[in-house]
């Protein structure tokens, strides 16, 4: 019977692990692991005996993957990290995503420069997936501010959705062997063509197991005032698909900004989705008043959730992987800020509390009940 809530908190200075009983009254913190090294991705793999994985993005000595078999009490490097073939010409710059695969011990990994790797042995060895890593578009993708990263891997049986910044949304229907760009309705603000075939700066893609055809995207919005070629393109930042990601439409109406990074779906209701709107110019919360926004009707309308959060002078930035939601009956949300605060939103975000207020800048937050 799962009775503990485990949080992994990837920061600029290493990985922290927080643990609480199911009541989530008090979290204890351990770490940092990968001390002093940025951790952009973590995974709490609850298949079988739980394992925790984390990327260790060392600017001196290169990328590592860490693995814990004791729920984050200790970590060891796996036998190898993803690496490009020697004659490829690319070198791994960062590890942005770790996701469980279909088979036991299968792990998928998204990296910078945007490419996809798979391990079949729990991270000890890796193979590059040529269908996306060597896609005909791949040499035309451009880096966003965070680098040219493959940051989102969303699996649904043989379907796989990838988010690439800036490459857009790519979809596989053969288990990850081949991919095609699928960006109809996803706008781009930084090209004269508002709706290019590819090259969008997708920030996050989420879905729900009970509604596999339904997907949500937090895209790079904030182009409502653009007056150059191609014209204004408001509300391109928050989107929904109802046909497995083939076409997309805006659901941004009602939000204070269509710019943001993270996006989360309620574990028990695919109609309930959360975003954290940010001002596009500063990547911080509008008016210095942080708030998560929730829709309970699939993006038809939005409600501001900020009880317990600061009302002013708090210019939080929340990065793309720094918000998650647990799977308890009344789930709690969690987000981390680049100012090192870790917040919990009880009752689906109705009431917020700061769990830790002085961690290093937070890149990544994941939660699991084990």
């Amino acid at each position, binding site marked *: 019977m799962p009775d503990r809530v485990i949080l992994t908190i990837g920061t600029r200075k290493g990985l922290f692990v927080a643990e609480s009983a199911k009541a989530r009254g008090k979290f204890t913190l351990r770490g940092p692991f990968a001390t002093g090294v940025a951790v952009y991705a973590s995974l709490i793999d609850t298949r079988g005996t739980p394992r925790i994985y984390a990327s260790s993005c060392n*600017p*001196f*000595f*290169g990328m590592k993957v860490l693995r814990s078999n004791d729920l984050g009490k200790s970590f060891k490097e796996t036998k*190898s*990290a993803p*690496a*490009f*073939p*020697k004659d*490829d*010409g*690319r*070198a*791994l710059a960062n590890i942005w995503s770790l996701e469980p695969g279909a088979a036991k011990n299968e792990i998928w990994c998204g990296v910078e420069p945007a490419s996809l790797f798979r391990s079949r042995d729990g991270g000890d060895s890796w193979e590059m997936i040529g269908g996306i890593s060597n896609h005909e578009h791949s040499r035309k993708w451009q880096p966003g501010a965070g680098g040219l990263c493959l940051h989102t891997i969303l699996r649904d049986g043989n379907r796989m959705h990838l988010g690439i910044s800036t490459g857009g949304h790519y979809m596989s229907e053969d288990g990850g062997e081949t991919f095609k760009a699928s960006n109809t309705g996803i706008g781009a603000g930084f090209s004269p063509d508002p709706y290019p075939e590819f090259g969008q700066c997708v920030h996050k893609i989420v879905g729900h197991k009970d509604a596999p055809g339904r997907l949500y995207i937090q895209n790079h919005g904030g182009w409502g005032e653009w007056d150059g070629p191609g014209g204004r393109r408001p509300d391109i930042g928050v989107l929904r698909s109802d046909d497995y990601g083939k076409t997309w439409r805006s659901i941004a109406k009602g939000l204070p900004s269509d710019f943001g990074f993270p996006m989360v779906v309620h574990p028990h209701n695919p109609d309930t989705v959360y975003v954290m709107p940010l001002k596009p110019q500063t990547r911080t919360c509008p008016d210095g008043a942080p708030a998560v926004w929730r829709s309970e009707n699939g993006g038809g309308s939005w409600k501001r959730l900020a009880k317990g959060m600061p009302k002013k002078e708090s210019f939080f930035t929340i990065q793309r992987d720094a918000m998650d939601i647990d799977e308890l009956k009344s789930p709690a949300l969690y987000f981390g800020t680049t100012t090192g605060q870790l917040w919990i939103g009880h009752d689906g975000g109705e009431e917020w509390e700061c769990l830790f207020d002085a961690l290093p800048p937070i890149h990544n937050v994941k939660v699991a009940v084990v």
Partner: protein
Amino acid sequence: MTSTTAVELFVPEMLRQYCGKARTLDVSGQTVQAVLDEIERDYPALYVNICDETGAVRRHINIFVNDDHMRDLHGLNTAVAAGDAVTILPAVSGG
């Protein structure tokens, strides 16, 4: 006619876990590149900390031959001779 040379490679403390905790390694080779090739062959886990997949020395890693940075000599083609010390040293950077 070629001959091998005995060179002492100094491994910084944080990388010794990848070479049996050795502080120094006796390596052969007539250039820095040849020394790195030997490290790749004999200590692949150590090598990937020094060079990336393209074979380039990582940006924040400095390699000295005796007291001189290899960039001030002939880079990876810098000659090494018996008795020389090759030092792997992480740069002072970050924040």
